[in-house]
């Protein structure tokens, strides 16, 4: 204990009672104003007009956090891998999975490529897209990772995922670029259109991703889970696995992949969640 310091803090002085009363009153008044201001601020934030299900002030904060996260995001930062003995299974979420699906006829429609020659219009309501069947996805280099799926609800499980890297597909197809030049996914990824949108075939579930995360080396177009072909409830025939994001971004039954210049809509971001949802 430092005696000098202690005596400095407890140094007393004589004052008259009137002075004490004034000082106390002034302080307590300031305190009361402070409580009022804090309560008002909290109420103000909470009652602001909502931006996709969350008060706009808080949405702005999420966006600022995103900006910060993206400034230090490094593609070589990988999600830890685990021993296969730790794997388990849990089913959560079936939006976009209604109706039967046939793996042999299923196609993933890819939009926003540099060269759209050969694009097909599925019907009157859709835009021309390059159709990729499952055989083509499975012909890409096969990758397996054992990572921890983190649900935004708070639970997490270790899962073994097998599939093709989205970056490998992108490299093969060549996404459209900002400059309009021929794409080079590996050497000038920053020139690729900044966002990727994915949708289920029926369009009822959709996620938006930053291209950086979508082309992360651990981002897979997954067709096998825990050593078995992907089950219907897990998004057969092909789902996204993206360990740099919460589970909500792991869209099941991919119908559309779109490289795009504008920020895509996102199912859960519309319900008040962070659009970025990066881990």
């Amino acid at each position, binding site marked *: *204990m430092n005696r000098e310091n*202690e005596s400095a803090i407890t140094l007393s002085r004589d004052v008259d009672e009137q002075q*004490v009363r004034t000082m106390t009153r002034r302080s*307590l008044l300031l305190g009361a104003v402070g409580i009022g201001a804090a309560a008002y601020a909290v109420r103000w934030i909470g009652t602001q007009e909502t931006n996709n299900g969350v008060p706009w*002030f808080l949405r702005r904060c999420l966006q600022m956090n995103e900006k910060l996260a993206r400034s230090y995001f490094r593609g070589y930062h990988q999600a830890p891998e685990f021993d296969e003995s730790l794997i388990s299974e849990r089913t959560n979420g079936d939006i976009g999975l209604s109706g039967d699906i046939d793996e042999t006829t299923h196609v993933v429609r890819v939009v926003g490529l540099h060269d759209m020659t050969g694009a097909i219009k599925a019907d009157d309501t859709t835009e021309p897209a390059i159709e990729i069947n499952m055989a083509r996805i499975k012909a890409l280099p096969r990758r397996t990772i054992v990572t921890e799926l983190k649900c935004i609800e708070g639970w997490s499980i270790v899962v073994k995922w097998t599939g093709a890297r989205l970056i490998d597909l992108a490299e093969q197809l060549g996404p459209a670029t900002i400059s309009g030049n021929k794409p080079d996914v590996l050497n000038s990824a920053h020139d690729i259109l900044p966002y990727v949108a994915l949708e289920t075939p029926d369009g009822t579930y959709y996620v938006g991703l930053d291209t950086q995360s979508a082309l992360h080396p651990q981002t897979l177009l997954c067709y096998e889970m825990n050593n078995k072909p992907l089950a219907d409830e897990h998004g057969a025939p092909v789902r996204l696995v993206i360990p740099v994001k919460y589970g909500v971004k792991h869209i099941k039954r991919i119908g559309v992949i779109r490289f795009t210049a504008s920020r895509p809509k996102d199912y859960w971001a519309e319900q008040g*969640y962070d659009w970025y949802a990066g*881990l």
Partner: protein
Amino acid sequence: MPKLTPKHTLAIRWFHWINFPVLMLMIWSGLLIYWANDIYSIRFGSHQLIKLFPEWLYHPHELKNSDGDVVRSAYFHLDHRLALGMAWHFFLMWLFALNGAAYVLYTAISGEWRLLVPGRHTIAEAIQVVLHDLKIRKDPLPARKFNGAQQIAYTMVVLMGACSLITGAAIYKPTQIALLTTALGGYKTARFIHFWLTMGYVGFLVMHITQVVRAGWSNFAAMITGFEVSASSKGAGGASE
């Protein structure tokens, strides 16, 4: 003539009163998040004593209106608000971290840490303080700003704050800072520690408020005004929080 004894500096008072509502709101928004996966409980062997949390806690203000419909208070509505909880939590975390860092920096530079950090005799003194408070011992408390029990409690709660930030970061960005998450024993363990630290704050708060009430108005007012007033010229001593 009354004697005016300076007690808490202006900076300390600001740190304290900024931290209080921020921590309350962090606990509240944390509860909104925890609701979505409320897996912890207090167990004795394989027997569950208390589920954390019992259902009633999430909607204590469930009332019925004249038509018999359930109406919920907007303020105490803690279920189905995960998104809102996360949004608040990820805004307030900055205030909590900045205020906490400023406080630690201030106590380090001003030398006030010497009054707070426990020393060699702290534990023995803390035991005396507890015995005194339980009215087992009659000896007066040390006439210092913080006695041993307070030193332990206040140093502990600052360390808990730091641990909350560290475990919070580990579950906020478990890929970008995977090394930290792994060092803490993984995502699940970090979440577990983060949760129990919060329970620790609740425990601290109960004790702290009890002691503040016991110590009386003058001690409480000093946290706002900064000074304590005593009638005698012997100075303020005695129990203080």
